């Protein structure tokens, strides 16, 4: 799935949502193109999530996932601007955040040479001790990756907040 197409659809859907809400007042009355864009964005988010998972060694979640999750969340809030809608909107955002952070951590863990893992295990470190004392200090890119993931998640959160404010 081309990322640019996904981004284009997501941005268009985002741009259309507040306007449609302002004009129509209800999801069922929203223009058809808004529904189509929103559903397309949802499909892309689902496809990205499914294709991005490669157990057990790596979890690959593209940087678009939080943005697409944000589209889904915004749609949910738009559809039902109440406690129920907001609660439902938390789910995709939380999932995307979790996967994105997990992705950043796992990539950093995979950066650690196997010999260092082995040296730690041979010295009696448990798996969690090896992660804490060997992998994390060695993973000097982790901080940058987590910052990037945080920025993407914040970007994903923005449309939901925008819809909440506008509705």
């Amino acid at each position, binding site marked *: 799935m081309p990322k640019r197409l996904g981004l284009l659809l997501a941005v268009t859907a985002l741009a259309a949502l507040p306007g449609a809400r302002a004009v129509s007042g209800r999801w069922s009355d929203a223009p058809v193109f808004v529904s189509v864009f929103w559903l397309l964005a949802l499909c892309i988010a689902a496809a990205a999530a499914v294709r991005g998972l490669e157990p057990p060694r790596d979890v690959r979640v593209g940087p678009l996932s939080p943005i697409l999750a944000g589209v889904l969340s915004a749609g949910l809030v738009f559809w039902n601007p109440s406690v129920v809608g907001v609660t439902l909107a938390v789910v995709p955002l939380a999932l995307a955040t979790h996967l994105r952070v997990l992705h950043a951590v796992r990539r950093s863990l995979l950066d650690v*040479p196997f*010999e*260092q893992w*082995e*040296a*730690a*295990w*041979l*010295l*009696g*470190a*448990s798996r969690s*001790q090896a992660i804490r*004392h*060997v992998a994390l*200090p*060695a993973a000097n890119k982790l901080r940058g990756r987590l910052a990037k993931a945080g920025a993407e998640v914040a970007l994903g959160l923005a449309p939901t907040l925008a819809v909440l404010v506008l509705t």
Partner: protein
Amino acid sequence: MNALSVDCSALEVRWRGRLVLGPLQLAIDAGERVSLHGSSGSGKSGLFQAIVRRDAYDRDLRVTGRLSIGGQSAFAERRLDRHRRRVGMVTAFPTMLPGTVYDNVAFAPRMAGLRDRSAVDARVEAALRTAAVWEDVKDRLSEPPTRFSAGQQQRITIARALAQQPGLLLLDQPFTLLDTVTAQTLESALQQLPDTTIIMATPDERRASRFAARVVELHGGSHA
């Protein structure tokens, strides 16, 4: 930690389906020094890998047969970190952990739960002295070990294993990077180590017989 005995029977080690050791029948008493002698590929490292249960994280390695360490089956222990805390291992080439020289040598005591700073300090110094590297590093304990020469790094690795105070110490060609004088100094120091069973693998026949009264010959994976 008390010295640990080693007892294996019908022990076989396979690497990617190929037999690299065994069937091996070998009994080593607690506190004994044993040299494993054999050419490259004779299965010396295979025995060590079986003892440290490398097969638990290396899918290419398969170990079968009976192997007991200190009277307990090595395959029965579910918490492998506990098993490995009793067994120290030094390989031919050093692999340094992140952090400083001090962090490296203090690693095993800390992992075992030793929190008292003075106790850790004492253990680090004693280990570095035994490994004949204290004079080289005592003023540079807060530096990364990678700033030292390969030989010094190897001695830091040996100190790291000694700080673990293992009941069984496995030395897999540990003096490869060391000069003759330093190697002999270390050999003598290790021979005097109390409460530890030591198995040293080496392809050097003279070193094997000098280090231990008992030399086990391995030929093509079998015990001669």
